[in-house]
């Protein structure tokens, strides 16, 4: 780079100037030299020790959490400062939310479709910390609102049924209506619980799960004590209509009947393998944990069937593959009620079963050897699984299936039972064999508000809550 023209500009300073400046500088006093302070070994060690101790403490807190003694100390301090109550309330809310999330995502349930979240204010009074009374709440002995809250979100109806029998379920802030007892079905007990927590309902509900509609109606129509005038249940939920004989024998007199919702289960398969031609007996023999032993007619053995040809000689020799929701889910329970158990009971060997527990173990238990693959309820993922495995059968709830985009549904074939395809009308009219309708029975004269409020709450759950996603809403003009 030719930059000589710039170098040429540089000149030497005038000698006189340099001399004068040097003389000036020589006369100038020099500031005292300040020796920078050296870091002493002791100080370095002290800082290192302090830093190391802090890091160790933070690590311990991270791993083990804040010790209980520290919690107590903080509580005492805050109590003295007058802010303890607020903090305790916040702490409890946080803990209860964590517990519920850990249990089943009850109160802040975002696991289901739509990411539904309960309004916190509606369930506040029932979320009382242990050891504190719930502000006048009437609870059954030995029960707590927290357990009811956690049970409310359980996805398994079977597990719920055990605890809900004795629990007084949580309800909304306004409990002026008192306690309402409902004789419900095990399979829809979670929906009943969610209805009690919905914003449409303003009373407490005591839920009595029943195995079937017969038991539920019996609870509804039976007095707690002879001639006491008090009945075991204020209302009943059934999956069939009350017969005329039951109406006449029921001591409640005039009752109101409401059609709550419909439910249907479907068997779906990829179109690549043609239509679904399975009987209920085939389904049972393919999915049951235990099947009748051919060599000993009245005894059962672990299910050895791995090919459809072993179940029914008219079927192809194809591996049995099923995918569906977890066995305790509402859809799976409906499948057991509507198809699986009837298939079981059609076998001569099961007629000899005397014990109810043994009956359930045979007729309501899926095999666990990998033939039945569990998937979370929600038809989208299940349908994708069926696309990926054309040989596989899928157990799908009708309501969830109808939410799948139509272009995806077109790739599947549905089970046609009794010559009927599942549609809204065939399901709600109980025409489709694998469908049922839930009814609510209430004393018409005594508790009109119960009927209206509970119907609204149920409809709200069916529309907005993942627990009710497998149910089909009905129109509001279904009063009879």
């Amino acid at each position, binding site marked *: 780079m030719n*930059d000589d023209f*710039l*170098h040429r*500009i*540089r000149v030497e*300073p005038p000698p006189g100037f340099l001399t004068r*400046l040097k003389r000036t*500088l020589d006369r*100038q006093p020099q500031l005292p030299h300040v020796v920078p302070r050296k870091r002493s070994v002791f100080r370095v060690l002290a800082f290192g020790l302090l830093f190391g101790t802090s890091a160790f403490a933070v690590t311990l807190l991270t791993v083990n959490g804040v010790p209980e003694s520290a919690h107590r100390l903080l509580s005492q301090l805050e109590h003295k400062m007058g802010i303890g109550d607020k903090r305790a309330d916040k702490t409890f809310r946080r803990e209860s939310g964590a517990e519920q999330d850990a249990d089943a995502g009850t109160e802040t349930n975002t696991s289901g479709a739509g990411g539904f979240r309960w309004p916190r204010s509606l369930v506040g009074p029932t979320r009382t910390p242990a050891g504190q009374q719930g502000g006048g709440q009437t609870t059954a002995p030995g029960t707590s609102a927290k357990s009811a809250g956690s049970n409310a979100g359980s996805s398994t109806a079977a597990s719920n049924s055990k605890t809900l029998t004795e629990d007084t379920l949580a309800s909304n802030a306004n409990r002026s209506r008192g306690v309402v007892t409902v004789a419900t079905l095990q399979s829809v007990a979670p929906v009943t619980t969610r209805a009690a927590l919905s914003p449409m309902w303003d009373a407490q509900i005591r839920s009595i799960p029943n195995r079937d509609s017969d038991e539920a109606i019996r609870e509804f129509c039976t007095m707690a004590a002879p001639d006491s005038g008090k009945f075991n249940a204020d209302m009943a939920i059934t999956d069939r209509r009350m017969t005329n004989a039951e109406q006449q024998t029921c001591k409640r007199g005039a009752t109101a009947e409401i059609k709550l919702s419909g439910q249907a289960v479907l068997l779906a398969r990829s179109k690549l393998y043609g239509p679904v031609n399975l009987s209920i007996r085939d389904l049972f023999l393919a999915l049951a944990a235990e099947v009748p032993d051919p060599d000993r007619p009245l005894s059962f053995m672990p299910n050895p069937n791995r090919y459809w040809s072993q179940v029914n000689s008219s079927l192809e020799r194809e591996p049995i593959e099923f995918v569906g929701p977890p066995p305790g889910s509402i859809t799976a329970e409906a499948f057991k009620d509507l198809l699986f158990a009837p298939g079981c009971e059609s076998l001569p060997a099961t007629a000899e079963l005397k014990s109810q527990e043994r009956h359930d173990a045979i007729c309501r238990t899926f095999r666990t050897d990998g033939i039945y693959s569990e998937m979370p309820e929600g038809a989208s993922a299940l349908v994708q699984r069926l696309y990926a495995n054309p040989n596989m059968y899928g157990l799908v709830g009708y309501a969830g299936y109808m939410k799948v985009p139509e272009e995806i549904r077109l790739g599947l074939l549905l089970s046609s039972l009794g010559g009927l395809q599942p549609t809204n009308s065939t399901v709600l009219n109980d025409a489709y064999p694998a469908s049922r309708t839930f009814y609510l029975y209430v004393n018409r004269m005594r508790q009109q508000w119960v009927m209206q409020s509970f119907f609204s709450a149920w409809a709200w759950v069916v529309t907005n809550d993942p627990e009710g996603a497998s149910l089909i809403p009905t129109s509001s003009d279904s009063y009879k």
Partner: protein
Amino acid sequence: MTLEQAAPRRMAGVTATDEVDWDAVYADQAPRVYNYFRFRLGRNADVEDLTSKTFERAWRSRAHYRRDLAGFSTWLFKIAQNVGIDYLHARRDHLPIDAAFEIASERTPETDAERNSDLARLAFLTKDLPDREKELIALKYGAAVNNRLIAQLTGLTESNVGTILHRVVLTLRSRW
């Protein structure tokens, strides 16, 4: 020997120990600081004052100079830069309107000759350049320091310094 080749001599007077031969430093650095201000201001006026101010500041606080923190040239030219910045900020760019007549009457054959000198031409050509480019020219050709030291003084990277200087020099030469 060009100034670039002479750059290692820049540290003359600074021995390997902490002892500094300030006389040698002065003899080596004074012409550099002087020319730095000439290039930076584009004229000879005030250059001696600014050079004096720089060295006075440096000498007054030379006890604080620490070799482990910066080279001597870096330290000295940082002082020079601050002195120059203070001067440029304090300078009145616009004289009162009454002074305009005096300025017009100041034109003499000597001033014309000075205006036509190389330094005046450089000032004229660089008057529209950004301060950063002016600073680089002053450091490179006035103070005769290398690009590495310029980079330390200006906060630019060494390659960036070289690129900017190359571009500016090409422009100046084309218009020289």
